[in-house]
């Protein structure tokens, strides 16, 4: 589904990604973990066209999508939910959803899709005219996910969906992502809550210093003592 091959990139002259490589299969959830500064969010930005790529290649369903703009990536069926709050707080739930389809010329189709998406998230339909700022944190995250689904994506890049949410809400968000995976959507997720995220993922990817250190089935990574130690400040080489 998605293949990242030896990608180098960063912000101007500052290089963050040092040859990161991985492949993720269709209809799966892959969680990217790693210490702070490992380049987890940066790799998402590189895939989505928000970052300078100095070298390497990104393939989506076998086609080269390296250096496409975010708009072009959306056109290829990729959506990105950045870290933190991504809503326009003063706009209603409906209008925030509508923003997800702003690049589409056929606005009638967008309105139809909003109805489909709201069927999947009944709480959003219930609050369709309420301002986004008036929703609970979990509902806001649901709204972000719903907006990402508006254009019926093949791949969702979601950065730290659990941030700022209570454990119950985190589980609810994870259940939503699993439901989407079961519907055939591929999900690539960055998550600090590594244990919980790997437990619900199919694959895990450990990044460190902008490189892929480990890439395996999620349950194998969960059982690997090196992963636990990595999060306590060690490096993969030292641990090995």
């Amino acid at each position, binding site marked *: 589904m998605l293949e990242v091959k030896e990608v180098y990139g960063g912000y101007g002259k500052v290089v963050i990604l040092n040859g990161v490589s991985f492949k993720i299969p269709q209809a799966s959830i892959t969680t990217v973990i790693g210490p702070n500064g490992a380049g987890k969010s940066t790799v998402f930005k590189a895939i989505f066209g928000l970052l300078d790529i100095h070298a390497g290649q990104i393939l989506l369903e076998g086609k080269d999508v390296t250096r496409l703009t975010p708009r072009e990536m959306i056109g290829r069926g990729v959506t990105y939910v950045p870290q933190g709050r991504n809503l326009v707080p003063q706009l209603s739930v409906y209008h925030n959803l*509508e923003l997800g389809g702003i690049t589409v010329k056929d606005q009638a189709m967008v309105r139809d899709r909003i109805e489909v998406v709201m069927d999947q998230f009944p709480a959003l339909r219930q609050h369709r005219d309420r301002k986004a700022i008036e929703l609970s944190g979990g509902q806001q995250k649901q709204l972000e996910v719903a907006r990402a689904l508006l254009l019926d994506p093949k791949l969702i890049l979601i950065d730290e969906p659990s941030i700022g949410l209570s454990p119950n809400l985190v589980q609810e968000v994870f259940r939503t992502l699993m439901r989407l995976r079961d519907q055939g959507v591929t999900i690539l997720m960055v998550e600090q809550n590594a244990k919980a995220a790997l437990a619900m993922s199919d694959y895990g990817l450990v990044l460190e210093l902008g490189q892929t250190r480990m890439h395996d089935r999620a349950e194998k990574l969960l059982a690997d003592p090196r992963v636990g130690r990595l999060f306590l400040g060690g490096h993969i080489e030292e641990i090995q």
Partner: protein
Amino acid sequence: MAIIPKWAFILVGIVLLVLAPIGQGNYVALILCSWLMYTIAAMGLNLTLGYAGQISLAQGSFMAIGAYITALLTLSGVHWLVAMPLAVLGCFIVGLLVGFPALRVKGHFLAFVTLAFNTLVVLVLRNEDWLTGGSYGKSNMPRPDFWLFNTGTKSTFLSIPLSSNQKMYYLCLAVFIVFALLMYGLIRSPWGRAFKGLRENPIRAESLGLDTRRLTLLAFAIGSAAGGLAGALVSPVVQYIEPNSFALQHSLRILLMVVVGGSGFFFGPMLGAAVVILLPEFLRFTEGYYLIIYSGLVIVLMVYSPSGLMGVGSRIVAAVRPKRVARTDMKEGAQL
């Protein structure tokens, strides 16, 4: 409680605006013209600043460009109906160019870039006297003749005597209503929501596929075109323009209108322009103290309500309106 629809308020407002100058003298008509012209300029800045989040201290210079283009064209015999769209187009293009720095600099730095542009325009107007008349400016611009409605002469309409200034007021009002409708349509459209998305967070707006570069440029260009439209009215209303009429303090006044009225609120600039243009007139009875009182009121307002007069309105509505039934969706804890 029966809720009065918003359109009823707007209709009453329009009727009041139509009746406002009747029976009043020339001075009142000119003050009302001034309020409408500055409202148009402030609504343009509100789009750039309030909706799209791009600060500009150059709105006065776009009024200048619009006013000078209109003056030069109408003085050479072109009808105002032709000169006005050309002035608007000219400002749209210049605004587009001024928007380019906004792609690289933000916040205070962008404010300084636009401030420099305002100063540059005033200097060009002052120094290029072969075209602009230099410090003496341009005068005696004709008021437009719409055949059945000649704004340059007195006449009676439905037995009501109308002076030339009153007729200019009705021209300003007509332009204002059309402009406000267009602006309302824009703000309510997905584009308006895209501008808000840009204001909240450009990176996140980009993640939705919004072309933030194009949006930023458009925000500047449309806002500047509104300044040009206001300038196109200044020219026939005042019939005398000179560079200092559009110096930095005028851009600051327009910014004050946006902030006092409520940045990012549709009706904010109308209220803000009323405070900045009309309130000093009402306070004239206090003679030498009116500027002190006026400044004091603005300071108190900004301290009490940084979101301006519209923010005060929202607070009052929030205090009066019964509170929502608290989170019925969370009866059993956080149910999604």
